[in-house]
């Protein structure tokens, strides 16, 4: 279990983390979500001591990270795997040697390394590339190798820093599926840092939304999407909504049993339905509906209704 309490960190005069408190339970997949620069990667790096923090506390199974000596930090990192956006493989070494490296650094004997490498490559489903250099692999394959390497030392915690941001949507799906699999098979705790909604939707149990170094909202994925904190709306905000016709644009999220709202808003408020998009949020389907309303007062009334109905919405008005 990871407990973070009132954690603060600054780079010079820039406060990157302000009073962060959260708890990650053993065996769950926890999402740190936010736009770039929100401080989520820095927070992730505090967990395995790649960054230090100025004040507050960060405990893994009761051990305060800041109190550890250099050697103890190295020991701690043995149990924490990490994967990155750019895969971070050693380009001049084969897949085998990349996965073997952590064990070599910890002086495992050759037979044990050999057995474990084969096991891991089997697990991430890339055993046929064992002697290839990373440069001939696709992005998804590279990330699989990186996952194998991160698990090499029998880690019980995996940190993912924008691990799918450099991948195409289909590959992202397959890597996410792998993460979910190993989470279930190995009981591994996973913390993912991401700005991609699909990552949250596909794998996270619990999330915290970070905005400017603060936690803007925290909770289970289902609750967050039902409770519609404004920070979620900021995250969901899509640039292309601006391009549609003049008037006010309103987007809202509907759970499956409230889809009757769509014809209602269309008829009552004269709203044009621009898009509907149903996605699976961790087993719960939500439909994101975007409508455009010319009449501003009608738009205002609709927002009131949405608020009363406890539905998440956000609006964007057009300048013209």
């Amino acid at each position, binding site marked *: 279990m990871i407990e973070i309490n009132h954690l603060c960190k600054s780079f010079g005069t820039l406060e990157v983390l302000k009073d962060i408190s959260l708890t990650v339970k053993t065996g769950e997949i926890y999402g740190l979500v936010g736009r770039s620069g929100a401080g989520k990667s820095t927070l992730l790096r505090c967990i395995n001591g790649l960054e230090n923090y100025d004040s507050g506390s960060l405990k893994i199974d009761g051990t305060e990270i800041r109190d550890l000596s250099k050697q103890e930090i190295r020991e701690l*990192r043995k149990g924490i795997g*990490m994967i990155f956006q750019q895969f971070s493989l*050693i*380009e*001049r*070494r084969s897949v085998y040697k990349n996965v073997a490296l952590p064990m070599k650094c910890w002086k495992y004997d050759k037979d044990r390394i050999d057995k474990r490498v084969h096991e891991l490559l089997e697990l991430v489903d890339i055993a046929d590339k064992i002697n290839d250099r990373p440069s001939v692999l696709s992005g998804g394959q590279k990330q699989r190798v990186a996952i194998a390497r991160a698990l090499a030392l029998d880690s019980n915690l995996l940190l993912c820093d924008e691990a799918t941001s450099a991948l195409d949507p289909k590959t992202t799906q397959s890597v996410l599926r792998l993460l979910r699999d190993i989470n279930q098979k190995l009981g591994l705790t996973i913390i993912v840092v991401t700005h991609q909604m699909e990552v949250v939707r596909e794998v996270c149990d619990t999330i915290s939304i970070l905005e400017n170094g603060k936690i803007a909202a925290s909770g289970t994925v289902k609750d967050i999407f039902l409770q519609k904190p404004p920070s979620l709306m900021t995250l969901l905000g899509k640039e292309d909504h601006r391009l549609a016709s003049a008037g006010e644009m309103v987007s809202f999220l509907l759970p499956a049993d409230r889809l009757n709202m769509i014809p209602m808003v269309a008829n009552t408020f004269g709203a044009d339905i621009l898009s509907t998009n149903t996605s699976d949020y961790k087993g719960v389907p939500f439909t994101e509906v975007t409508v455009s309303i010319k009449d501003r007062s009608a738009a205002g009334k609709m927002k009131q209704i949405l608020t009363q109905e406890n539905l998440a919405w956000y609006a964007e008005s057009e300048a013209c």
Partner: protein
Amino acid sequence: MERLSLQQYLMEVIWPAFLTTINVMTWTVLISTVIGFVLAVVMNVTKEDGLHPNRYVSQALDFLINLIRSFPFVILMVSLIPVTRFVTGSSIGVKAAIFPLCITMAPYMGRLIQSHMEQVSKETIEAAKSFGASTFQIIWHVIIVESIPGISSVICFATVAALNASTTAGMVGAGGLGNVAIRYGYNNFNDTIMYSTVAILVVLVQLIQFVGNTVYKKLK
């Protein structure tokens, strides 16, 4: 003075000079690669965002390297004579040439090798840290491994530079092809000797570069 026949020149003048040049060049490259490599590692580790930042070491090295690089080679060689004599036991001859050559080449190599080490991705180094690799292991298994092709191209570059500089070293009586070109060719008004020596140098440089490129491609 009677002129030697071309064959005599080849066997008695150019061939020994060729061997001397190769000798001076090889030792210079070997020694300055080792020193340059150590300099590069220290610079890389102590730089501001390195594995063990140390402003004093980093700045001192920077100053020293720039200091040596600002000397024209001939002047450096002359001003090093007392040191050379102390280290090699003589101020003339092959050893006396190799010493100042190494002193001038090593900082260049250090800078060049460091610039290749600099290009190793920060994230890859972070990844190594994330599984608990020690500083030494990161240098050995990540930084050096990833910059080997770069280092090979630096060695190739240095070999050509050492070949050039070794001709100047003829000044301290080390002999070599450059010396032959000047003494037997230029000073003796013998264009054949002068240009044939140059031709040998041209072929040598082309050969070194070819080998260097091939090795680089193999390692990449």
